[in-house]
């Protein structure tokens, strides 16, 4: 699609990588807290206005297939996903808890893009069922710094190992 050019992505020095990893961990912690609280209106604020977001099975990623369970490009699509979750989609109430770990800063490029990865785990509780692991996967991210210097996601690819989704997936990860 319109993937940014990251061919000049280069690894960072250890003294740059350490602080950046902590900064991304803080970012992901806040991101997880927003999803845990289901504060959906805040979710698009983690992304740039032109961001790309996709949730896809590992088999698709490995074979280079483009589909996503959720496939969003640009703020308008993010806002429409949020509006659908909040107003039109019909689903039973649930608690979801997100665990984001193993942050790895892959590198950065001349245009200021930062490539990073993390593992994620989502635990789901339906009101009258036992708590279960809903999804295990990893993020492949591109971050940029906004005008205020804060990190924003330019792209987040959520690649899940848990190929067989239990019933459905009402919320993003």
């Amino acid at each position, binding site marked *: 699609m319109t993937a940014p050019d990251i061919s000049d992505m280069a690894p960072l020095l250890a003294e740059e990588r350490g602080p950046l990893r902590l900064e991304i961990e803080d970012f992901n912690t806040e991101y997880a807290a927003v999803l845990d609280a289901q504060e959906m209106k805040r979710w698009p604020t983690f992304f740039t206005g032109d961001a790309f977001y996709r949730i896809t*099975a590992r088999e698709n990623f490995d074979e280079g297939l483009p*589909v*996503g369970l959720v496939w969003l490009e640009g703020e308008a699509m993010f806002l429409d996903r949020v509006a*659908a979750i909040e107003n039109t*989609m019909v*689903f039973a109430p649930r608690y979801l808890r997100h665990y984001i770990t193993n942050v790895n800063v892959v590198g950065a490029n001349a245009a200021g893009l930062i490539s990073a990865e993390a593992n994620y785990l989502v635990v789901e509780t339906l009101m009258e069922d036992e708590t279960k692991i809903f999804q295990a996967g990893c993020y492949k991210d591109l971050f940029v710094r906004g005008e205020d210097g804060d990190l924003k996601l330019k792209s987040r690819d959520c690649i899940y190992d848990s190929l067989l989704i239990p*019933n459905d997936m009402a919320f993003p990860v």
Partner: protein
Amino acid sequence: MPDTPFIQDGSNSGMLDDLCWPDDDLTRIPDWIYTSKAILERERERIFLGKCWNYVALEAEFDEIGSFKRSYVGDVPVIVTRNDEDEWKVFENRCAHRGVEFCRESRGKAKEFICPYHHWTYDISGKLIAVPFRRGDKGKGGMPEDFNMEEYNPRQFRVARRNGVVFATLSDATETLEEYLGPETLEQFDVVFSGRELKVLGYYRNRLSGNWKLYHENLKDPYHATLLHVYLATFRLMVAGQKSAMICDAVGRHATAASAKDDSIEIDDRMVDEMKGAFRVGMDLNDEDFTRYVPEFDSPWTVTMSTIWPNLIVQRELNTLGIRHIVPRGPHALDMYWTMFGYVGDTEEMTKHRMKQGNLMGPSGYLGVDDNEAIKFLQDGFKRSIPSEGVVKLDPEKEGGTDTLISEASIRSLYRHYREVMGL
């Protein structure tokens, strides 16, 4: 998932002979057809392994000779292959020796399949070609003298293909695929599968917490479309009063729910009131391009959802296209295997449009989530409440096809056929 003894599962422990359709009445559906293991076993024997053509694969998944795919006929694991003579083969994925499901990869390329346990070996056409130490070792052990490998081939299915879609049947008595589909279903099938070469865009899988027949019913039930799916009405993809139809075959087992998006319909106060909570006043899409239909089909309909008995749904919603392959998992669950596709020669922009509209359907779809949840809510009802029956009385004069959304006529035609085949 562990079976915990305190969970009610509604399973009917009685024998099939004790099960009797209430008053022989097609407007009533007993809960036990969704909860009984004995029913599911008879469905396997009489429907999936009976006189039916089952979807197993798309040809586009087999880019060369020697390609294979794991698949299912009902809940029976099979392997689909394209052999060295470029013939299509479908055979059971079960070693004749001890029952091992020997092919473990979803898709790939192979010269032969070797069962990992004792290395019994099958060629790409599914023929048993080697049994190690068949004659024993140093005169000891081995198979009996009269052991004949030809008697131990996996069960072979007959194969039919049409415009890139591969079907299988176990029965010698099944009519041709074209006769099986019937002219009405064939016409809709050929809109999507017109001979244009398909391009696979990816896969999803989800396990729905409901009986497999509920998925067919869901798509034969246009009544729910404008009520459950708040999204459809709110964003004008489908509203009562727009041109729509349920197109059935003569037998009553297949159906196509068809509708044409019509932006000119005024949603007045009376309709908002009738739809209860199903219409959100004053909501607009931020991305207006999302629901745009790019004309690409020779069809008056912008959406057709074809349920092809017993295990295939062909999804054409605007420009998002997909196969949904039903695999029953006991009475209370089904696995849905989704194969999303476009066509060879699609522009990059068209592929992107298909990806965007993919948000409508699937396990996270704006419409998909609603259906998956509703099917679970149904099964929860069958499992947890006192066993009873459902009511399907809408549009009472009709059975099969109809031209109103407010109808259950094609659910009734399905169950007329189902009861005949099942002897219920």
